[in-house]
């Protein structure tokens, strides 16, 4: 067993090392002359990316990338990526840019470049009407029970910042939202944009999203460090997506609600 594990590990590591190997991302010219742009989409993040009945990847990210490919006048090739491999894929030039809630942060920006934000993610508080809390800092009380998904990042945030509140940990998002709908807790802290689909399933519950967000993340498109030409062009494209209202339209289509914290579009970037 151990030997098998070791062998498997060795193969996995070699495979991983090869993906990292000679890194050369394509320039804008190379993308145009090849006639295809390759975009990484993570199908485990509905509604940004998911598999439909025909096992095709669809979602906000795919629509967004389709529109960008159209602007560039090339065909779109969707490449499936996962959380751990998506940045190596960009670095090694397997894909031209990556989507999938790529929150820009200083650590990632050391390895790849980011375009201007394509969308935001709001870490916020989902609660029900009748709960009078105006912001998360008011919720550090023993009578508050958060219903959270076991192992998700906000659990750590609550343990550190809301020590007095109680926490009920459930297995997955549908269970946690259902428990909240049934009155098993006061609120839930998570990325609110992904909640639309779940809230929709409990129509009888009068949901409320607390208006002061806990945190806002800006998600851009991830591009390789050495493909400046492509990044500059993508910046213009993303700006146009916002200006033409395409982003807002697609967001509404896939998320069932407006973007909670719209990207403030600036003509300077």
């Amino acid at each position, binding site marked *: 067993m151990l030997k098998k594990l070791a062998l498997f590990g060795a193969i996995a590591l070699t495979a991983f090392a090869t993906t990292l190997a000679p890194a050369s991302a394509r320039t804008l010219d190379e993308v145009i002359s090849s006639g295809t742009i390759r975009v990484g989409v993570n199908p485990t993040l509905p509604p940004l990316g998911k598999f439909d009945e025909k096992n095709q990847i669809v979602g906000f990210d795919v629509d967004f990338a389709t529109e960008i490919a159209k602007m560039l006048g090339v065909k779109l090739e969707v490449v499936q990526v996962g959380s751990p491999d998506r940045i190596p894929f960009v670095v090694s030039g397997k894909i031209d840019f990556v989507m999938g809630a790529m929150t820009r942060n200083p650590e990632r920006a050391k390895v790849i470049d980011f375009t201007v934000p394509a969308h935001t993610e709001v870490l916020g508080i989902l609660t029900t009407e009748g709960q009078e809390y105006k912001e998360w800092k008011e919720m550090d009380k023993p009578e508050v029970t958060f219903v959270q998904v076991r192992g998700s990042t906000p659990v750590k945030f609550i343990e550190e910042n809301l020590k007095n509140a109680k926490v009920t940990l*459930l297995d997955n998002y549908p*269970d946690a939202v*259902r*428990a909240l709908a049934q009155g098993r807790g006061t609120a839930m802290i998570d990325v609110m944009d992904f909640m639309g689909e779940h809230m929709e399933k409990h129509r009888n519950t009068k949901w409320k999203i607390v208006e002061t967000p806990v945190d806002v993340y800006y998600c851009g498109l991830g591009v390789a460090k050495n493909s400046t030409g492509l990044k500059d062009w993508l910046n213009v494209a993303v700006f146009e997506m916002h200006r033409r209202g395409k982003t807002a339209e697609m967001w509404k289509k896939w998320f069932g609600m407006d973007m909670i914290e719209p990207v403030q579009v600036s003509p300077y970037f």
Partner: protein
Amino acid sequence: MGYVLQYGQIWPYLPRLLDGAWLALQIAVLAFCGGLLIGTLGAAIKSFGPRWLSMIVGAYVTFFTNTPQLVQIFFLYFALPDAGILLSSFNAVLLGMTLNAGAYLTEIQRAGFESSRRSELEASEVLGFSRLQQIRYVILPHVAQVLFPPLSNHFIIMTLGTSMAAVFGVEELTGQALNINSMTFRSIEVFTVTAGIYVVLTLIASVLLAAFGRFAFRARTKLI
């Protein structure tokens, strides 16, 4: 290959695991006692009760022994609130495990009841024992000896079964292990230690049960 086991990162969390183990044991004991009560009643009805009542018990046993326990608790936890009954995480798990145990223990005990010898029963009838007296003085002492080993086995199974409480937000041993795993990412270490605690837990339980069995019923239980 380069994986280095680092138990050092796990030890600071040991108290949380032990808290979880204690909670698991509490759930197991409470559910087992409740189940034993239901089971004794159920077995008595199935062996001696009126036909219609025996059929109801039969339906209960069939239902609970033929559906997964996890599904039963899901029903109690997530379906009942729509009917206006909101059980807390702990209560839902406890009730689910008790009802499940009740069904299994009914069957186990019925088999035990039927093992009491016909001649003994007839003798007690001749001596003018009532049904209740028969149960109390003839059947129970005999049955306890036969039943003790399977009952204590079921208790061990239930102790391990408490791990599913984690799904419903009860922070017993498995729940704590999952939490610590998501904080440290030391999966192998966390679950090795957790498995170790389960072994210790069930080992202590079987030793205590065996000692009790020998003392009270002169039942011979194999250790380990």
